[in-house]
């Protein structure tokens, strides 16, 4: 059917970068590919992505990767506080539990907290910010004062209050963190909305008879998304530290759950002679926070046109 002189089928790259895409999917994938290339140019950003990716992998495959049980200890007489060795790569803690296994299972909790907080706080922040920014007037005033109220709560204190009222546990910690996380997202979304509210393309879609809800959802939110995503990613490091802090205070996950912050807390008592008990989970917290920070920085360089060089 094709003549011998017809052009060869395009490679994947050519297809993605084609200046005349033939379908919406092709256009979208092309843009995603270009975004990925811009992102990948920044080696630190890739490091951050790798760390986060590893965290996710470890959380998913913790059962397979962990050599021992994270909660059941060995012999309390002979296997407590063993230093790192080939059997226990990171040693054992004061309950004779393998620290490596606890670390791997603890990643699930870390990921759980980060994911849940993001999923709860981001939509709230986006909704409040875009509605306040777009509608203006008294709606804006009321919503922003509401935001200010929540912004005024110090995260850890609010978590303490929650836990005091509802009892300790990781779910309450997540709620507490989420409630104090959304105000900055609302502010960012509102700022972006204010810049685009009076632009011609919004006026044009108003002139087509679009409802306010449609305008906000389909036209305003996509433009706010980049800034908010960047902020959320950068916040994740802080969220992990807060959850660890709560765990450290005994207010997050309860024993014997292998939450990293709680592990640091118990290891505190043995820091001098048995440094690995506190240091290893502490390092894990550091590395994962760093990973999210680097990822957030990389995303900002790609998504935020104002920061572009």
């Amino acid at each position: 059917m094709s003549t011998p002189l017809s052009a060869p089928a395009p490679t994947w790259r050519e297809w993605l970068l084609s200046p005349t895409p033939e379908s919406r999917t092709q256009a979208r994938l092309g843009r995603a590919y270009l975004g990925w290339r811009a992102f990948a140019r920044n080696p630190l950003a890739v490091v951050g992505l790798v760390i986060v990716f590893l965290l996710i992998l470890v959380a998913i495959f913790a059962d397979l990767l962990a050599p021992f049980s994270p909660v059941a200890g060995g012999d309390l007489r002979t296997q407590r506080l063993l230093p790192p060795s080939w059997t226990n790569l990171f040693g054992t803690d004061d309950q004779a539990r393998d620290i490596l296994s606890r670390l791997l299972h603890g990643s699930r909790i870390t990921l759980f907290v980060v994911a849940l907080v993001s999923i709860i706080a981001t939509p709230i922040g986006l909704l409040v910010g875009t509605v306040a920014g777009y509608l203006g007037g008294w709606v804006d005033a009321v919503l922003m004062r509401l935001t200010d109220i929540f912004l005024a709560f110090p995260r850890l204190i609010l978590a303490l209050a929650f836990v005091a009222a509802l009892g300790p546990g990781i779910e309450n910690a997540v709620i507490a963190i989420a409630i104090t996380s959304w105000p900055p997202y609302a502010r960012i979304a509102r700022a972006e909305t204010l810049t685009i509210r009076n632009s011609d393309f919004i006026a044009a879609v108003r002139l087509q008879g679009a409802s306010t809800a449609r305008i906000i959802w389909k036209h305003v939110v996509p433009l706010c998304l980049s800034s908010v995503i960047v902020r959320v990613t950068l916040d994740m490091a802080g969220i992990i530290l807060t959850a660890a802090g709560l765990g450290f205070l005994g207010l997050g996950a309860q024993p014997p759950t292998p939450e990293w912050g709680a592990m640091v807390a118990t290891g505190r008592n043995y820091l001098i002679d048995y440094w690995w008990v506190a240091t290893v989970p502490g390092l894990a917290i550091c590395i994962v926070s760093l990973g999210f920070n680097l990822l957030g920085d990389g995303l900002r360089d790609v998504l935020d046109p104002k920061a572009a060089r």
Partner: protein
Amino acid sequence: MLSVDRLQVIYGTGRLRTTAVAEASFSVPAGGAYGLVGESGSGKSTVLRAICGLAPVSGGTIHVDGQPVPTPRTKAFYRTVQMVFQDPYGSLHPRHAVDQILSEPLAIHGETRGAEARILATLKEVGLGPSFRFRYPHQLSGGQRQRIAIARALILRPKVLLLDEPTSALDASVQAEILNLLEELRSSLNLTYVLVSHDLAVVAHLCDRLLVMRHGAVVEETTAAALRSGEVQSDYTRTLIAASQGYTRAAPPIG
């Protein structure tokens, strides 16, 4: 088709009260083209915005197709009256591909059957092929973006097109193409135009009659023929005509 009677647009209250349009009246027959000419701050764009509901009407009446315009404007109104904006770089959503920009008005009005065919047909009407369908605005030139903006305005088959300085931001050669396109569309689709511009030549080219405005007030109503022959009544219009001829150098200083 469109008649504006003693339109007033006033912004703000008390000390900050500004009268953007003092009292503008004109009417355009179906299939006609009417121009609004003036410098910045004359209120010409505000008149357009008041017609389509983007600016508040503080006094006077507007009638489209014999009916007074509803406040707030209804979907039926938007099916009859559409607008093309000045800045091709700001009037298209940066994250939406052309296909989405053109299908949005159809989706809003529930006319999704046969949408693809209509999109392709409208693209053809504005002189763009189907290869433009999935491009994003940043991949288009200024002239192409303005064509998309025109296509977006036309896809609902309106009767009246409000044009707010549609070619001011374009290069001269592209301006000529867009002006030709607008002229052709007006006759083939029997549209009624209201064109706002600071450029007398552009208005004289596309429109039959025009209104000259200054600082929100109407200076005079005249015709394109009068502009060409210079038989206008107001001195201000005469200054505008003279200015449009270009700069004349003063005689070189003596000595």
